[in-house]
């Protein structure tokens, strides 16, 4: 039985399309004065956040509440990495509280996988972002946003659409999940980054790789800019923030080379002036704020499909 959503690789094309079509129905709720459905009444969703992430946490919280689930927010500040309570003990506590689904955000890659497969909990586990591994619901909301703007035909398909993802791919869980999901959905993904910010083995991923942003932009249907943490500069990944911006930042001049229909995306939080300039972030092409709205709808769809039906339709094999 499929119970967890740990990786975008867990989703077949049919799974992903079901989530996106369910999200499209739920998205209409956002425009109604009363935004609540009784679908998950009596179910408990725990947001287990070992890392600060207000955006993702409130997005999942809003999603669960709009489906009438009870929500427990568990901010486990000290992870076992910092000698606080261990992941296992936290999990056992949640299990004792009777959680039906646990949304886990953790700084260690694979922590949601451990939670799902170690026998500590029986609930469904949703990966809310783990280390430098994956962030599958972010990829789903990105795909949802793309399909609303770029989707073709009745199914709003992304087949053949060209998506350019730019920035710190090496440390980005968003890039990993997007590369997997967009490939599953038929889109053509190009990763653009300086060679120092690409993982070893990226050549085996189902994507194109380029070091040249200017060459990649004119063919793009969507451009997704990834956050670049200034700390990376100290790791010697690039010489200076200015040089990074010059080579890999999206500014007004580069934006002018895009096709008319091309959208600009960012998973947030943005570092304005680093990977994206303010005029681009605030331009008509930018769908960054809409991504947030869509995030709630997609997470509603994920929770609904994992918990709502008698046979959950998404997630990996147990």
């Amino acid at each position, binding site marked *: 039985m499929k119970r967890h959503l740990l990786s975008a690789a867990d989703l077949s094309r049919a799974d992903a399309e079901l989530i996106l079509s369910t999200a499209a129905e739920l998205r209409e709720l956002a425009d109604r004065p009363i935004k609540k459905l009784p679908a998950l009444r009596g179910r408990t969703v725990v947001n287990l956040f070992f890392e600060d992430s207000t955006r993702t946490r409130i997005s999942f919280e809003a999603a669960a509440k709009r489906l009438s689930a009870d929500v427990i927010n568990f901010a486990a500040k000290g992870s076992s990495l910092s000698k606080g309570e*261990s992941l296992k003990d936290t999990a056992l506590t949640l299990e004792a509280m009777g959680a039906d689904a646990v949304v886990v955000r953790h700084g260690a*890659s*694979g*922590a949601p996988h*451990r939670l799902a497969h170690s026998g500590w909990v029986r609930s469904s586990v949703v990966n809310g972002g783990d280390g430098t591994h994956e962030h599958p619901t972010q990829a789903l909301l990105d795909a949802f946003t793309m399909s609303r703007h770029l989707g073709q035909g009745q199914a709003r398909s992304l087949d053949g659409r060209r998506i350019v993802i730019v920035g710190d791919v090496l440390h980005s869980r968003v890039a990993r999940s997007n590369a997997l999901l967009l490939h599953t959905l038929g889109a053509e993904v190009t990763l653009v980054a300086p060679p120092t910010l690409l993982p070893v*083995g990226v050549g085996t991923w189902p994507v194109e790789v380029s070091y040249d942003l200017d060459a990649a932009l004119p063919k793009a249907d969507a451009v997704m800019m990834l956050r670049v943490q200034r700390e990376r500069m100290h790791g010697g990944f690039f010489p200076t923030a200015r040089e990074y911006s010059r080579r890999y930042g999206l500014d007004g001049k580069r934006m002018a080379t895009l096709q008319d229909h091309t959208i600009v995306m960012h998973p947030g939080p943005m570092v304005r002036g680093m990977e994206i300039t303010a005029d681009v972030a605030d331009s008509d092409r930018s769908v960054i704020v809409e991504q947030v709205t869509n995030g709630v709808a997609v997470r509603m769809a994920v929770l609904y499909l994992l918990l709502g039906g008698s046979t959950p339709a998404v997630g990996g094999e147990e």
Partner: protein
Amino acid sequence: MSEYLIKNVAVLGGTPTDLLLRDGVIADPADAPADAEVIDASGLIALPGLVDLHTHLREPGREDAETVETGTRAAALGGFTAVHAMANTEPVADTAGVVEQVWRLGREAGYCDVYPVGAVTVGLDGERLAELGAMADSAARVRVFSDDGRCVSDAVLMRRALEYVKAFDGVVAQHAQEPRLTVDAQMNEGELSGRLGLAGWPAVAEEAIIARDVLLAQHVGSRLHVCHVSTSGSVELIRWAKGKGVDVTAEACPHHLLLTDELAATYDPIYKVNPPLRSAADVAALQEGLADGTIDIVATDHAPHPHEDKDCEWAAAAFGMLGLETALSIVQQTMVDPGRLDWAGVAERMSYAPARIGRVSDRHGRPVQVGEPANVVLYDPGARRTIEPSESASLSRNTPYRGMELPGRVVATFLRGKATVLDGKLA
């Protein structure tokens, strides 16, 4: 002391014969007294007592993970009669006092001889040499020096250590890991580490240090031992160095001969070890290197950890896995059964050569023949067993072979004629 008459045993897998163990030595079976304890060893082979050059016994300091007593019990069950106890204890074995304590604990336990390894640098900090001469001159007679767990990464310090230990015929056993290339490293760097989002431990971080060290050893004319070689590139470098006449020896660990980095995809830190599990091509190169003698020995890197240090997320977990009780079975499975090595080759790589490198071959790593010390293992290569962690004599349970069926079983181990293991159980 009992006298044992071992009947019909195939020494190194050869023609069955009888062995008499008397007064701590192997004696002529024709002299067996009537009351000697007879062991029917039909179907069993005899090997010289195994010698491990790389064991973590954790005492002093981490007696929750292992003690000298529990670790040497596990060693005896694995067929070992001597182990070299690594220096990364708390306090670090960087003084004559600590190495003598470990040595004395080994003598008191009595399950196998314990030879303490001395730290190269004070506190393993890689900044100044520990009192290597004091450890060499102590009752523990230290000859192997290692900062294992950490690399002696400073080139000048490594050079000085290599030179200094020549005065007492010591050897520096290097944990080859360039520290700057492996900050926060979690697993073998490759396609899989990129996919799993676990920080990579690149092969070059091991190979760069080995390349430097063999050149240093050549330059100063010293003896170098390379711990836990894990990559095909390292095997090539060592092969090259030996071809140039460099006095270098190297070890491979059982887990690197069998397991691959694919296991990291489980995110189960039972498979987290340093150096990490590598690719199938690396495993094949290690097997080949061990077969052709480029890799001199098998050493376990037995690294016990308490349950909580493995029952957690990958990045938070400790590096290391148990190895003493399964080493011989892994070597049988990966080397003997596929025809890469015969039992004489196993004796060379798990007893004679490690004893030579550790400079203990006056009492260990001796041939199984009349007049030699009675350090002998009886092994049943036809047995099959399923590894059950709770059956381990170690205090810890972090074996990566849980649930695996492995060939072979140690039936008996004799240390100077005294049975430490009989019928597969501690005597």
